[in-house]
């Protein structure tokens, strides 16, 4: 009797950290399957590949914390990046200015989303979905689907190394910590959590719920734009498939990490970060093992499934 309770206790503790445990297991499996997996070069690659999704994931975490989903992040990322890139390449604007413009443009789109959701009181899914359609349409009209190459000034960021990592990787990691501090240790962040964990209550207590929701949408848009900025450094060009389906990848990543879709629960670090990292690791490991390209998706999906299943066991107990 007592014994079984102890086991159950142990199980619960384990399950609470299931994602991390599973992440570690995945890493062990991959490293035993490929000697190239557990090398510093590969881990730099993994970090580097995760920057874009990490940026989008940070923003999305804020939207999810207030209990809303932003489906326009992918398109927004592409929009902000393309428009700024066009300005800098075709209209000769200052490249540094345009880099800063990317997150701002993203934030602006977020503002529109947020206003439509909070002020006109529209359904967030449809607003952001419509925004996605509209943004993709606009981008295609503007760029004529031609890839835009970044000027050298932008690419230079790649070569600035800090602790042996490219500057943009360090940058996003620093921003991640900053956002986590804001979420965890600032009035603003705490009120966002309050709004997400009990909307009606927040309204009752006279917290300006609308503005907090609006802010979350702006942040989500801002980080989508920032993702555009990172990819333009990382990739050196803005191409036409950028942003396609990111909303789903990003949602699955942060949910995998433990951010709740229902609002209130979640963190940028470690949760969103862990989710993004695990997803990147899975992708990296599978590629390294040379998984059959036809089965790649299936393998990835099944791994996510197992993880979500383990994670859900604790809800049933």
């Amino acid at each position, binding site marked *: 009797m007592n014994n079984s309770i102890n086991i159950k206790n142990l199980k619960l503790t384990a399950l609470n950290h299931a994602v991390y445990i599973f992440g570690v297991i995945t890493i062990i499996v991959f490293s035993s399957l490929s000697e190239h997996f557990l090398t510093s070069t590969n881990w730099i690659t993994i970090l580097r590949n995760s920057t874009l999704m990490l940026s989008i994931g940070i923003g999305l975490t804020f939207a999810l914390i207030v209990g809303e989903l932003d489906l326009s992040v992918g398109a927004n990322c592409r929009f902000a990046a393309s428009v700024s890139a066009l300005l800098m390449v075709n209209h000769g604007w200052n490249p540094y200015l345009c880099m800063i413009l990317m997150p701002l443009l993203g934030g602006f789109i977020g503002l529109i989303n947020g206003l439509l959701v909070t002020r006109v009181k529209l359904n967030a899914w449809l607003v952001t979905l419509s925004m996605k359609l509209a943004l993709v349409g606009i981008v295609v009209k503007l760029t004529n689907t031609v890839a835009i190459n970044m000027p050298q000034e932008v690419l230079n960021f790649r070569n600035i190394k800090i602790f042996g990592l490219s500057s943009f990787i360090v940058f996003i990691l620093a921003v991640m910590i900053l956002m986590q501090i804001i979420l965890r240790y600032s*009035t603003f962040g705490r009120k966002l959590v309050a709004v997400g964990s009990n909307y009606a209550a927040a309204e*009752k207590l006279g917290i300006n719920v609308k503005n907090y929701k609006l802010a979350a949408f702006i942040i989500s848009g801002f980080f989508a734009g920032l993702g555009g900025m990172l990819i333009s450094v990382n990739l050196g060009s803005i191409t036409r498939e950028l942003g396609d389906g990111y909303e789903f990848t990003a949602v699955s990543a942060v949910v995998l990490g433990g951010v709740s879709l229902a609002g209130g629960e979640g963190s940028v670090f470690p949760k969103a970060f862990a989710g993004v990292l695990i997803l990147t690791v899975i992708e990296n490991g599978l590629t390294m093992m040379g998984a059959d390209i036809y089965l790649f998706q299936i393998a990835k999906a099944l791994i996510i499934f197992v993880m979500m299943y383990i994670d859900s066991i604790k809800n049933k107990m």
Partner: protein
Amino acid sequence: MERRSYFEAVNLHKYFPGVHALNDVTITADKGSVLGIIGINGAGKSTFMNALAGELAIDSGEYYIGGEKTEIRNQKDSEKNRIALIHQEAVVFKDLTVAENVFIYNLKDYTKAGRLQYKKMYEDASRYLSMIGAQVNPRELAKNITVGEKQMIEIARALVRDAEIVLFDEPTSSLSLEEKENLFRIIHQLKEQQKIVMYITHFLDEVLKICDRTVVMRDGEVTGDFRIREVSTRELITGIAGHEVETVVNQGEENEGEEVLKIENLNCYPAVKNINFSVHKGEILGLWGLLGSGRTEIIRSIFALDKPDSGAIYKRNKEGKMLKISGHKLLEECAYVTEDRHYDGLFMAMPIWKNITMANIRNFSNGMMDVQKEHEYSIKMIEEMQIKTPDENVLVETLSGGNQQKVIMARCIGKNPDVFFIDEPTRGVDVNAKSFIHRKILELARQGCAVVMVSSEIEENLNLCDRVLIVRNGTITDEVRKTDISKQNLMDLCLGIKEGQNE
């Protein structure tokens, strides 16, 4: 006009669609006094307090505080006037810590260089919490604390704001005895600090105990104003209900009907341990214990709403055989009134009639739902239960707390079950409805239904139960037969005072 009292609300009007919720309400209160506000369900008590708290705006009327005319249109106004409301359902944020919940209004004060000073915040929170005698860890997340502790958060919030006028909306309906005593002590403190306290409740003994004066409301109007020293419970009851209300008592003989339900070795970690009992036909079985003793959890694990670790349930089927039955199946066959109507009771966004028929959809459908029949039935139940509402199409979320409770009772009674589980049958309902519900329960039992009742009101156990099981720390420690049921006995047993009852 000269203002005689420190606080005066004059000629308030508030209309909701189809309801005149406040009709020319004038209420005054003095500093250093406790004002009770009582009345039947849907009288407009909560509406009055919500208006004061700025959560809804009145349509017309005036407020005078300290002789000055003030506007209260929103929460900001209310905060400016130092008014704090402790809600009927505690308003907390489940994903924030207790301390953050307490200081949710003043997080800014704890910010230094954009960063929250948690150390200071936790210290202050413990100070405020210990001031009101609450033993809560300020670092705990609010989703992990009990209902009573949540209420303490709200009270602490009022203290933090240094409120002049403190409003309580049915604070005791989910508090333990200890917590209740504590609350009364706090109210006394507030009174001594020359604050104004207004207090809504359906428990008249509480009114007599802590209030100096009480107003009685009915259908949006103030119909009475009593000085406590000059009034008796009886007068108050007639004041509220408009007529005498009889106390319903189970007069029946101790009967030994056949066993209909048997629970064996039920375990559900951590709250439920080794539960064995059986229920007989026509019997009202009470589960009595302190708040948090795990009574709700026992019922939930019987129905497998919390997945039990081990245990078996047997139920007598139509042929009279005791057969093993799964929790889900049992739940399908019985009726279950849940403890928390918001969380797992009502369908707030649905109209009353759908709520009333939801538990026994099968009775209203033969392939197709018989909507006509549903409406007729709901109207009948609304009349019978005296649910105060314009019509049956009103959304349940607009009903007053007590009326919502009546809707749940109506739903379960309508199912005509052979086993009936009730968790807190009369939480938040007025004297009238309480006696009606009691009568209904008795009637069901007399018809052969086995009733399992969890009630935190000791009178309810005394008056209704044929047998009481004492629950302590998630196990059944004792059984009290009808002849032995007395207030003293139950209290002693649940506290574990009597010898030999401990595990």
